[in-house]
């Protein structure tokens, strides 16, 4: 799943930086001899638990010819291993009351299991078996190709934003593999080989390239015993090759147009180059994104929706190991020319760097972030996602607990400074999707 751009979801994902009542010392960790790290949080509010396993592999590890392979692998991980043949992973899990899903983006592939806590050992058996002994059955590969082609086309059929974002990425990046759509190009989906799949598995699905987070009605000692039993004997592998390509500096605005005949109004997307997840500017950028696009009092909502130029605004940013993009987008009201909408949108964005933000506006976003934390910590899944993201992208799960202070420290000058530094014309790509080109 590459897109999680809806404003409502952003309230959860972007605010995933901290816990209030929860403290760092409640979180326990251990690392097996093969390098696989486990993060455990005991939480007994419901008799359930989850297991989120993060593999550091995504479409940034791909190249032409094998685009979409990370995501395809996410699918193949459900298609059989030594002790659980085709279909048996899901059948066993569901018969034990569990459910699962997974998502892939440019940087990570994450497997999510949700189950009654009493089924913990079954989940460990299943997860351990597929990392140790995945089968890549050519027959399953063929039918799964059809599934992924359908996933690709249904995304394009039902979401203009997805279609526009895919093409925008290929314009915004000239060298870095962030240009590759995570779902893959159609011709690659149809063409990758058995050998490609086997290489990929052996390169990236190593215990030392994974972090597993378990939150719920479990005991740390039990989790440790099960982890050792079911993952301990899986051999460590050589570290995967680093992504070498560094995106060269963008020297000026880039533009694109996508024609979609059935579009009833124009879709506009503006994306600016921003630094990687661990950057010191991250908190200020996160606040900037929120004050521009989140809520009915956000800058863009007031400038575009309240003025009836647009029917909605939104934004998206992904945690990434390499410098990425901050996307902002809006859907025009019927009959509003994209150029008119673009002018108003860019003016509203530029205003932050030019005129700054008020104390009240900054305080509003800080308050919203705090409530976002509370909502996140209402569920075991919110907690697992938060701990995993911080561990993988921000240098350790503990950083989640430092974040409130980092946000609190931000001043209006900090926000204006990051706006001036990153929201520049030369660093943006502007995309328009509409029924036809003029």
């Amino acid at each position, binding site marked *: *799943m590459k897109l999680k751009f809806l404003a409502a979801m952003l309230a959860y994902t972007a605010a995933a930086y901290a816990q*209030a*009542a929860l403290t760092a010392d409640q979180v326990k960790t251990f690392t097996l001899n093969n390098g696989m790290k486990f993060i455990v949080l005991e939480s007994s*509010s*419901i*008799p*359930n638990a989850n297991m989120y396993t993060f593999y550091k592999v995504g479409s940034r590890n791909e190249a032409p010819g094998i685009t979409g392979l990370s995501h395809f692998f*996410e699918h193949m991980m459900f298609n059989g291993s030594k002790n659980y043949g085709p*279909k048996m992973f899901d*059948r066993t899990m*569901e*018969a*034990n*009351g*569990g*459910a*699962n*899903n*997974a*998502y892939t983006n440019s940087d990570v592939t994450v497997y999510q299991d*949700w189950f*009654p806590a009493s089924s913990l050992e079954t989940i460990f058996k299943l997860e351990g078996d597929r990392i140790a002994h995945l089968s890549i059955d050519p027959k399953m590969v063929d*039918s799964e190709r*059809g*599934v*992924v*082609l*359908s996933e690709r*086309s*249904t995304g394009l*059929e*039902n979401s203009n934003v997805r279609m526009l974002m895919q093409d925008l990425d290929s314009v915004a990046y000239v060298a870095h593999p962030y240009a590759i759509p995570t779902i893959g190009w159609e011709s690659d989906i149809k063409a990758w080989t058995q050998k490609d799949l086997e290489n990929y598995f052996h390169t990236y699905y190593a215990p030392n390239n994974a972090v597993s987070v378990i939150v719920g009605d479990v005991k740390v000692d039990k989790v440790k015993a099960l982890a050792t039993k079911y993952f301990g004997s899986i051999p460590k592998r050589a570290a995967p090759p680093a992504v070498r390509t560094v995106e060269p500096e963008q020297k000026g605005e880039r533009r694109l147009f996508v024609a*979609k*005949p*059935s579009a*009833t*109004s124009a879709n506009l997307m503006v994306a600016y180059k921003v630094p990687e997840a661990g950057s010191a500017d991250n908190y200020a950028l996160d606040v900037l994104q929120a004050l521009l696009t989140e*809520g*009915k*009092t956000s800058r863009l909502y007031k400038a575009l929706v*309240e003025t*009836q130029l647009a*029917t909605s605004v939104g934004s998206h940013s992904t945690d990434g190991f390499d410098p990425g993009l901050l996307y902002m987008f809006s*859907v025009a*009201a*019927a009959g509003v020319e994209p150029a008119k909408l673009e002018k108003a949108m860019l003016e509203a964005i530029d205003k932050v760097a030019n005129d700054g933000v008020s104390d009240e506006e900054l*305080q*509003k976003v800080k*308050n*919203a972030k*705090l*409530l*976002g934390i*509370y*909502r996140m*910590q*209402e*569920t*075991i*899944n919110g907690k697992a996602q938060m701990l995993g993201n911080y561990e993988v992208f921000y240098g350790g799960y503990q950083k989640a607990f430092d974040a409130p202070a980092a946000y609190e420290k931000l001043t209006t000058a900090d926000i204006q400074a990051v706006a001036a530094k990153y929201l520049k014309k030369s660093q943006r790509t502007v995309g328009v999707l509409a029924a036809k080109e003029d």
Partner: protein
Amino acid sequence: MKKLFSIALTGAAAVAASAHAAEFKLPAFETAKLSNGLTVYMMERHDVPLVAVRAVVKAGAVNDGKQAGLANLTGDGVLLGSAKHSKAQIDQAFDFRGAVLAGGGGSEQSTVAANFARKDTDTLLPLFAELVQEPSFDAAELDKLRSRKVNGLKQAKESPRQVVGTYYRAMLFGNAAYGNPASGTVNSLTALKQEDVKAFHHRYFRPDNAALVVVGDFDPAEMRKKVEALFGQWKAEGPAPQRADYGKVQADKARVWVVNKSDAIETTFMIGGPGIARNDPDYVPLQVLNTVLGGRFTSWLNDELRVNSGLTYGANSSFSTLSQSGSFGISSFTALPKTEAALDLALKTYDRLWSKGIDKATLDSAKAYVKGQFPPRFETSEQLASLLGDMYANDVSRGQIDNFMKDVDSLTPERAKQLVEKHFPRKNLQMVLVGKAAEISKIAAKYGEVTNLEITADGFQP
């Protein structure tokens, strides 16, 4: 992503729980009735310092009459300011405190919901009470909202997945009240006036036709006083609105609606017929049976259409329940050239309910699944508030929740067979196909009497 979440036909019904894990108990809550007739539910939870509040009104698209979209516009319009505070003041008050404020109208219930920090209760609860009882429906703001909704309706038709369920409902219930599209149509919405919205609010938003649900971090004695002070003066005038007969599914012959979307690259479809009401005594066991057919990843439909054949990214089925009746539907989508193969396979797989039946091992697995997946459905205050609101609006007794475990555990293969015969529609199946008519119309005739529609035409009926 491995799975797509299933298409929910009605937001309210989709929240309904399916089963009960052994250790799980619905948290205690109290029910009271104020002297003006307002039903009040309060449930204390102190995990996080948040309060979820919602007003649930028994009014929705079934009360729209010829003015499709009226309940929905009213439900959202409530947020546009009160007699005492402008929209800008309301937005500022909630946004500044990180609070969430939402309104809306579905088929049979309209909801105004807020979620805020405990410490902001005294600032925001009075504003919430004003919006529910004395919204201003400011003319300029209402115009903007209506125009945004009209645009939204046009945009929704760019995505077959967003509208296939609305066509399906309209097909099944015809001109009966349950067939009304909650969103309205471009023409019907455009015609709505401020006075229509005001009259709808006056008629239905009244204490003897509504419930107030409060779940979260509060002191019950203090909250009772606040609720009494803020909602006790709300007056009902004249006789309370009564529910009428909102209609039944019409399925006297097999029918196919082909909705043409000329640039479609896939065919999006629903197949089914009559279902059950939300408070049907068989509601819980039917959730288990539907789990086998199309309610989880290893369900028969997903296994056949996705895993075995690669025809689609996902296939599922569900009962969409209403207070008086309901519908059943299979949903999926496939690449245009595979349309016939996918439809045939969906029908063949569905027939296994009768030709093969559900064996004990499969049933046991489904029972374990619905029980195991139950607790996370009621983990947050917002989820619990939504459940209490649905119970009120759909006349569901506590018994259905409390007896979940018993109802799931007692289900046998013999009983499953009886329930399949009784509740799953086998004959005269109804089908909606959204796609490229030029290529799928000839296939459609195989499945029933064909009616052709254009997706760009107004509304959701021929």
